[in-house]
């Protein structure tokens, strides 16, 4: 455990500096992690956390500064040597191979040769004992985000590291799964493994971590004991200003039903996809409906059916403002006032290699009338993109930069802003604040609440229950392609939702209902 001041730190960083053209990502950062310590690394998106951990893992090389491992200076030339040293890392943007199986992916992340059969057995054992069930022979592209993250975690655990770097590991887990993983991490910590933990969930850091280092703008700000701080004080240290909780509207005026779904059943056309069965719900104007659920329970299929990427056999299945739209494609639905923020912001929500202006145009050209007889209205498009950047505080050098040059949080603000500015009647948002820092998350939440107050129907699909509780009026749970009845916030607790999410999901051995209740 921490607090043994006489012991040599497992890892010590001294004066780590890394400059990119035009920005100093890390400016003389010091960090000390003791053996068995769970150390939080806190900071907004763009504070330099990712750069710092990539330097520790050998993906990047520091311009200046020393890395001291168990008392001796080391140089970590590449991830192979990091793994050999005893450092494992779970990436935020997964480093997975979509066309390969779980086992192959894990073998690729380990140095040296592996016996595939033995490895498979190992995966099953380790994944079950840590409550992260995995099927070794599944192809990765058939898995949900949450399941993909489990692969990354198991891949590290199999190598028995001395230092585990975790970049936002719980953002896609249920509360029960997260709690299970905390037990794992605490166990690893007791076994003497140091953990460098990056998360935006401040309550989680308070509950789990022994120490926290706070970065802001690439600089070391302070080190503190998170158990002695409040979530609010931690957040304020990160962003350097005072933070305001989202202002919730009192459930006063509910408008007419704007999004109606009746008996939506779709058979998955992909191997291992989830069949949707008889889904019914309404969202009224002025209302935020939250849909909770563990990744891979039909969220992807439901979102595709709502956005129009998958069409329904019967037009009456989905109605926007009483218009049957089940057979219409995405653009026709957008014409009727639907806006959509997909789960995957790079690749689905935006074209990574295209400029912000082009990305703005692609989703907004109809609602914002940016097309003149087949030609792009360039002036209008730049105005629209600048408007998004300005109103939604997107930090970018300019609207002519590509989408993939933005950090995750900033790109998410851009995508949400792009949809909100189209003044939708109905907006569907998947995982609105996944991997987004506290300041940006609060801003996105407030934006969605304001939109609802102005009469729009808002549907939020998320795995972050704190988020759903902060902004929703009603919450429903999706499990194995079925949606539970939406219940008012006052009538349901986090525990009940957790049970609905996990209970029916066939993870009996590891996710026992009994040990939760």
């Amino acid at each position, binding site marked *: 455990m921490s607090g043994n001041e006489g012991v040599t730190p497992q890892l010590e960083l001294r004066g780590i500096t890394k400059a*990119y053209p035009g920005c100093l990502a890390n400016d003389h950062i010091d960090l000390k992690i003791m053996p068995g310590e769970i150390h939080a690394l806190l900071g907004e998106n763009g504070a330099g956390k990712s*750069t710092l951990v*990539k330097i520790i893992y*050998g*993906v*990047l090389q520091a311009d200046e500064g020393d890395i001291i491992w168990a008392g001796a200076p080391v140089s970590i030339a*590449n*991830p*192979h040597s*990091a*793994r050999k040293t005893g450092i494992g890392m779970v*990436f935020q943007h*997964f*480093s*997975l*191979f*979509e*066309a*390969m199986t779980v086992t*192959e992916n894990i*073998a*690729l*992340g380990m140095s040296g*040769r*592996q016996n595939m059969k033995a490895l498979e057995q190992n995966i099953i054992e380790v994944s079950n004992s840590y409550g992260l069930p995995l099927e070794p022979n599944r*192809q990765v*592209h*058939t898995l949900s985000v949450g399941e993909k993250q489990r692969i990354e975690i198991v891949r590290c655990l199999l190598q028995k590291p001395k230092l585990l770097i975790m970049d936002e590991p719980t953002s896609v887990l249920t509360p029960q799964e997260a709690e299970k993983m905390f037990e794992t991490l605490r166990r690893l910590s007791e076994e003497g493994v140091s953990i460098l933990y990056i998360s935006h969930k401040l309550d989680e850091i308070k509950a789990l971590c022994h120490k926290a280092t706070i970065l802001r703008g690439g600089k070391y700000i302070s080190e503190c004991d998170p158990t002695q701080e409040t979530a609010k004080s931690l957040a304020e240290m990160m962003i350097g200003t005072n933070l305001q909780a989202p202002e919730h509207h009192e459930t006063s005026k509910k408008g007419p039903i704007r999004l109606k779904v009746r008996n939506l059943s779709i058979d998955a056309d*992909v*191997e291992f996809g989830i069949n949707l069965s008889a889904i019914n719900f309404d969202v009224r104007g002025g209302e935020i409906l939250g849909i909770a659920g563990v990744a891979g329970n039909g969220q992807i299929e439901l979102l595709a059916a709502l956005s129009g990427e998958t069409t329904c056999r019967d037009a009456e299945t989905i109605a926007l403002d009483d218009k049957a739209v089940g057979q219409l494609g995405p653009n026709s639905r957008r014409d009727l006032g639907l806006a959509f923020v997909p789960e995957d912001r790079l690749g689905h929500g935006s074209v990574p290699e295209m400029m912000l202006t082009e990305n703005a145009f692609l989703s907004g050209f109809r609602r914002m009338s940016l097309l003149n007889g087949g030609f792009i209205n360039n002036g209008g498009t730049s105005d629209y993109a600048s408007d998004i950047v300005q109103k939604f505080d997107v930090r970018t050098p300019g609207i002519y930069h590509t989408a993939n040059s933005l950090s995750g949080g900033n790109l998410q603000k851009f995508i949400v802003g792009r949809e909100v500015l189209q003044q939708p009647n109905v907006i569907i948002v998947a995982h609105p604040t996944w991997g987004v820092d506290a300041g940006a998350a609060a801003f996105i939440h407030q934006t969605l609440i304001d939109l609802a107050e102005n009469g729009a129907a808002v549907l939020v699909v998320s795995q972050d229950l704190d988020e759903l509780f902060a902004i929703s009026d009603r919450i429903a749970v999706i499990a194995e392609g079925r949606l539970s009845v939406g219940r008012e916030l006052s009538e349901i607790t986090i525990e009940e939702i957790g049970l609905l999410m996990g209970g029916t999901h066939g993870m009996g051995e590891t996710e026992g209902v009994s040990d939760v209740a």
Partner: protein
Amino acid sequence: MSGFDWIVPVILTVITAATPLVFAGIGELVTEKSGVLNLGVEGMMLVGAVSGFITALVTGNYFLAVCAAAFAGAVMAFLFGVLTLSLMANQVATGLALTLFGVGLSALMGQEFVGEPISALNKLNIAGLSDLPFIGPILFAQDALVYLSFAMVAIVSWFLYKTKAGLVLRAVGDSHDAAHSIGYPVIAIRYLAVMFGGAMSGIGGAYLSLAYTPMWAENMTAGRGWIALALIVFATWKPGLVLVGAYMFGGITILQLHAQAAGLNVPSQVLSMLPYLATIIVLVLISKDESRIRKHAPACIGKIFHPAA
């Protein structure tokens, strides 16, 4: 048996027509599996063909000739690698340029050798077995390159799906960014894959100039490089199917000759269209099933890798 006497010679010619396709196809398969699209197969084959021919003519040593062809193809591929992997030029444009360059270069190199005869690559003669009726001439009396082509398919299959190095190569083709972040040298791996592809194309070309028609003529590959490229799509990037496809496409080429000889009234142009037509049909069929494409087609094919943060 007497009514089927024509079968053995037909099978023998199909084998000779298919072998260059097997070499070029299996080499390009490895290149594409690493995420690189090299459209210069035709050019690499021609340079391999002429290099092999000159070496055989000058030294009389066919082993050296095949090595020279492989080396020449690999050098061409290395050139392609420098342009596309190190200098990040567009792969499609560079590949087309490589073909045009190869056509010109091989013509220049072979100028003085057009029409010079050499003896064809020796057929193996295994006492006893080669004289067996029917299967003797087909299975036990081929030249070494035919056997090598089958061995290469087996080796590549084994390498790609049974070894860690093969897994890494496929991983680089599936997601170069993920491979990079785990710590694999993406560019170096692609160089090796591209050069292997070049060496195999070179040998495929040499088969034409040393065994199929033992002579050198300008442009003697006559579009086989393009058939090899189509073959990989036809085979949905599976080594075993490359072999099957090569024999089907090789068979069609032979069919052209025999159909004409037999007085069949099918225009030869229609028959030469068949491989491409078959490829298009396969493309349409596999495109209907997304998960099948994702399983075998390298996702990063033709994409430039920028090793940024």
